[in-house]
């Protein structure tokens, strides 16, 4: 479970996020929606400490992060990142490594897993995501959809309790959208907390259990997906 409490973020004196308080439940998909510039992606990045904030807190499990770069917060962020995976909009696969190397990198160097174990788990993940044939390829040789699935496999390799997705459908054609929707619901079935930032309301309507609606950095509405969607339409 991820809890955000009273989070405020300023950039160049301008308020980007104001008094954001939300909770993301395990086994559910929560979508963060809102117009461009409403602070969706910034909020997502605050959760795993890629962006600092000015007040409030992020709590993942028993670890609390207060938004600074102090020693205790650095340690907290380190803890949070091990249990919260992040799938970037542009994927950011490691360009100098093969698909397999991308996936085993964190298990070996962060979780200190044995090479052989990391590799067999990575193979299983690739199999599951339909990438078994691409283990030896370099990122530049993959299609956009394949790159996204490798990014998901890389995050899953650390067996995180939560996964954060930034605009997962922005670069996908319709058939790929169906595929990512299926992957997300599989992850939900495993009891993971899924947070998806998206401005694609059709996709959100398809997959989200809950919705947080942001406008100008404030939570306009939050709750069950159908309730929030009804509010938006009215």
């Amino acid at each position, binding site marked *: 479970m991820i809890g955000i409490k009273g989070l405020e973020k300023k950039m160049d004196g301008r308020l980007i996020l104001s008094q954001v308080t939300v909770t993301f439940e395990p086994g559910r998909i929560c979508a963060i929606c809102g117009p461009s510039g409403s602070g969706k992606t910034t909020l997502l990045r605050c959760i*795993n400490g*890629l962006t600092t904030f000015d007040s409030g807190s992020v709590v993942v499990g028993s670890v609390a992060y207060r938004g600074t770069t102090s020693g205790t917060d650095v340690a907290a962020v*380190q803890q949070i*990142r*091990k249990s919260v*995976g*992040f799938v*970037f909009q*542009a994927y*950011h*696969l*490691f*360009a*100098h490594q093969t698909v397999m190397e991308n996936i085993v*990198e*964190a298990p070996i*160097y*962060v*979780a200190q897993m044995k090479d052989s174990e990391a590799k067999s788990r990575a193979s299983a993940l690739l199999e599951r995501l339909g990438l078994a044939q691409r283990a030896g390829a370099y990122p*530049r040789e993959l299609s956009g959809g394949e790159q996204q699935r490798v990014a998901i496999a*890389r*995050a899953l390799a*650390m067996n995180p309790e939560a996964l954060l997705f930034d605009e997962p459908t922005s670069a996908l054609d319709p058939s790929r959208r169906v595929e990512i929707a299926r992957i997300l619901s599989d992850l939900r079935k495993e009891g993971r907390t899924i947070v998806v930032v998206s401005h694609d309301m059709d996709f959100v309507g398809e997959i989200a259990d809950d919705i947080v609606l942001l406008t100008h950095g404030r939570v306009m509405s939050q709750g069950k997906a159908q309730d929030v969607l009804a509010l938006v339409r009215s």
Partner: protein
Amino acid sequence: MTRYFSSVATPRARFGVLLSFVLLLCAVPSVAWAGDDSLVRVRKAGVLTWGGDIQGGEPYVYDDPAAPGRLIGFEVDLAEAIAKRLGVRQEFKQSDWSQLVPALARGSFDMIMNGLEVTVARQGVLRFSRPYYVFAERLMVRTDETRITSFATLGDRRVGTLSNSLAAEILRGKNVALYEGVEEPYADLVFHRTDAVLLDDIIAARYGAPKKELKVVADVAEGFYAAGLRKDDAALADAVDNALGNIASSGELDQILSKARLMSPRESRLVAWSESDQRAMLGSAPTSPEPPAATQLSTGHVILFLKGAGMTLLVSILAISLAIPLGMALALARAYLPRKYAALASLYVEVYRGTPVLLQLYLLYYGLAAVVRLDALVAAVIGLGMNYAAYEAETFRAGIQAVPEGQMEAALSLGMTRSLAIRRVLLPQALRHAIPNITNDFIALLKDSSLVSVLTVVELTKRMSITAVEVRSYAIPGALCALMYFVMSYPLSLLARRLEKRLGGAGR
């Protein structure tokens, strides 16, 4: 190193030579009967130009400390006296001392007069006037030296002297350190980098004797300073000889030498200098052992060139091996350390890039010698390595900037610490971006390594200039030297281009 090529004609100078050649052709009919026109030419111009190197310092030709820009010295007085007798004025031309002979040959001035010792080897390329000074080759050691008691007991201990000097010829075949300046040989002797110095007594008295750590062992040979003229300029040479004879017999030479505190009992021989004295001097120029009058480039030379190239490679490879990790550390410090340390790294880069590497080498080797006595090769590697580290730091900085920011974020989001992310994700990619430029920097370093010859390291370019003096030509040794540099750098250049192509797509 460019100063070795200072005698290579610029296009403009070449045009000037061509022009004077044409003028000469026009003048030929009127003077053809006189044998050669050298004296006529000097009289017509109204000026006798003579070459020397003011770096040789006191008492030869040097800047007047009381009036900067004005030259004084006993050779200036002598040139004045000679010119007066020829009915012209004198004009000094500055040239690197090691380049005086080729500069005379290509017509930069009429005569050399700068402590030029009479040697057998030099007689092949120029005509010596009668001598104007008799000197001794003086052997000096440290005061605590007990093993070296004479020239014969030198063994294979390291002896410093000036390159292209009579002393260098006498020392041929021994373990010699060659210098360009007169202060450095004695400084290195004090610092235990050499075990003895053999140089003209004039130099020894001024630069060696004042050092309380040094003492004189013995005067091992006698030698003569004489003016050097082109072989074809017989008429001018005769006139200079007559002038010098008159200067000696009139007592003016005594005055000039006394004024410079150079008078010794030896000099009395110069007054009644006869034809047979001159023949004896030229025949038995004090060169023990007799130097081989090597006029042909031999396989021996080529082997020495290969050795020089080996030294060039060794210095370059060791220096780049120091420059790469140091440059990487500097680039990382600038990118990731707190501002205080980043500023220090920036300062390092700016200082090393903003000052000449030659100066850095001098400071490291001679300037710091009182604190740390670095071996010449070690100083060369450290000096070049630290200088190139500044350039590698910039190369790595560009490499780091070429890695998209998302790569670091992706690594951090997987729970990596900053240092782990830098090591595993950022650096391998930055290195790929930097490799083609590092290869290019190495090619530049290969050529810059010729600068370390000022630290007595005999590498390829130094070997070339030594050989050029021996065979009296720059053409073939120069071409051979250039070829060797090319053979070393061209494969690297190809490699850099291939790497650029292959890695061009990586990192996207």
